[in-house]
């Protein structure tokens, strides 16, 4: 049995992949960036383990996996709220820094609120990646990982603490409460909407079952442009809202292709992408156009909060480890 510092997937989840911020620099070649759906959760999980904010994490969906740790580790889970059991016994908390002893298995038992749960480990995972990223693109997963039963992923920094198994280090991070309001910067097709569609686009939409990391298809009022034209393809982004010929909307998500030829109603603001990422089939949302100034202000507020969090926790982790722990780097 291989006991080098690693996690083992004892049970496969429905979709568990290795992701970081994304594989950027190659979109002109058609290489899609992929990356986490929920960037705030990635930052939080990394902050709680004292990692740089874009260190690769494991993105999990529900039903989730069961993961065994072969060495002492300092971990954090963030994103969705979920029931996570330590050795099938007590639950461990989300949004806390948690100490896991060697030989422990964590069962991601049940999602309680939200769609994606992120696991970060102090020191990060052992993965060389491809083109400077460990993200996993659905269409070509090289450089990333799609985890199945018995998969092993090395970890870089086993961390031992003089504390009981499952100990949650004494600091709290508030859970993020997202509303169902999704704000967007209007695109070229927005200016072309009929008067009726302009009114209707602020009604409630529901995320359909036909939704995944590539995009969310929305059920809702049919929107129409005053004039439609065959468009030349151009670049699209995570959050681009496309208006299909049927009048229905599709929001491109993390695994979007690099270009598209459908009219763009607009693009979801970066600050609201994490909220969107935690929505799933059946969730209702409302679209609200905002300007760039508002989008920038919201993004900066979010970034500021995350940076404050990072700094505060880093300081505390260092102090705690100095007092109670030891680390070995692989």
């Amino acid at each position, binding site marked *: 049995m291989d006991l080098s510092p690693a996690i083992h997937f004892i049970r496969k989840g429905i979709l568990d992949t290795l992701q970081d911020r994304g594989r*950027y*620099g*190659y*979109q*002109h*070649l*058609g*290489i*899609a*960036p992929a990356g986490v759906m929920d960037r705030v959760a990635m930052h939080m999980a990394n902050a709680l383990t004292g990692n740089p904010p874009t260190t690769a994490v494991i993105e999990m969906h529900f039903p989730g996996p069961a993961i065994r740790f072969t060495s002492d580790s300092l971990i954090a889970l963030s994103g969705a709220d979920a029931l996570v059991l330590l050795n099938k016994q007590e639950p461990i908390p989300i949004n806390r820094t948690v100490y896991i002893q060697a030989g422990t298995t964590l069962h991601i038992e049940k999602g309680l609120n939200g769609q994606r749960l992120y696991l970060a480990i102090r020191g990060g995972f052992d993965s060389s990646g*491809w*083109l400077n990223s460990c993200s996993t693109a659905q*269409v*070509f997963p*090289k450089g990333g990982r799609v985890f199945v039963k018995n998969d092993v992923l090395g970890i870089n920094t086993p961390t031992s603490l003089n504390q009981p198994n499952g100990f949650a280090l004494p600091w709290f991070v508030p859970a993020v409460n997202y509303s169902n309001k999704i704000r*967007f*910067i209007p*695109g*070229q097709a927005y200016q072309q909407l009929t008067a009726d569609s302009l009114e209707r686009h602020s009604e409630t939409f529901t995320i359909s079952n036909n939704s995944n990391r590539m995009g969310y298809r929305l059920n809702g009022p049919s929107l129409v442009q005053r*004039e*439609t*034209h*065959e*468009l*030349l*393809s*151009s*670049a*699209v*982004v995570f*959050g*681009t809202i496309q208006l299909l010929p049927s009048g229905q909307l599709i929001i491109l998500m993390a695994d979007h*292709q*690099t*270009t598209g030829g459908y009219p*763009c109603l607009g*693009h*979801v*603001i*970066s600050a609201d992408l994490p909220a969107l990422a935690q929505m799933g089939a059946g969730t209702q949302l409302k679209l609200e156009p905002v300007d*760039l*100034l508002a*989008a*920038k202000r919201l*993004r*900066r507020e979010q*970034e500021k909060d995350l940076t404050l969090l990072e700094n505060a926790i880093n300081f505390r982790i260092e102090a705690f480890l100095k007092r109670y722990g030891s680390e070995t780097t692989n």
Partner: protein
Amino acid sequence: MAVAQGLFSVEKIPSVPGLSCLFCSGIHRAVLGYICIMHSIPKHCLFPLGDEALLLDFGNVLDEQVHARLMQVFHWLKKQKPLGVCDIIPAYNSIALAFDPRSLFNTSVMEKGLALLEQAWQSTSDTTQEMITEPIRIPVCYDPTLAPDLISLADSCGLDTDAVISLHCSVTYQVYMNGFLPGFAYMGTVPQAIAQPRHPTPRKMVPRGSVGIAGVQTGIYPLDSPGGWQLIGRTPVALFDADASEPCLLQPGQKVQFYPINLSAFEAWT
């Protein structure tokens, strides 16, 4: 014939997929030609893609010269490697800049994007000579066993398959953009006589190396993939090699020519 309704408006054209770029009135030619000699970026051609990316979009009529001008901007930016720009994505008639949000801390995507594009535009305005590139020659086997749509496409065009092959090979194609898959190059312009629209329902599996037509575009599938293009041949050459230092054979701005090879040459290809 429809008249352009303003400097950069979209001409009303019959919506046959992929054929729009052919209907370019004299007025539009003048307008598009003007873009190339313009001294600075017209601000109404700039569109934010959310708050972390920006698109410079010259509208809906395809023009080789405008694309060449955009490629100059693209190459200049790629060479400069401006801080905070994480991707530069050229397409048929547009170019997008994607930013690392940390680089937008004290500025906005429009401000920073416009400044960079303006700089790139002006720095390349004296480059009158188009970058001469040797066309990449790609062998294609047009045998019907490898080309499930060749015969039906020929029928739809009222041609025999030899004529289709000959026409497909008769043009030097421009790679306008990559998209859809790693290394999938959108090339134009396919001769009108064989420009058939894509299938209304895509195939679940198109084998890697398949050469297809969709309207006036031609392309090659670098990986096994679902796909709706009309499959008229297959190349034994690898379009995409993840382990190579240059993983994609075809990139925007390149020129491509096809030449036919027979089935035994295809099978023997190393």
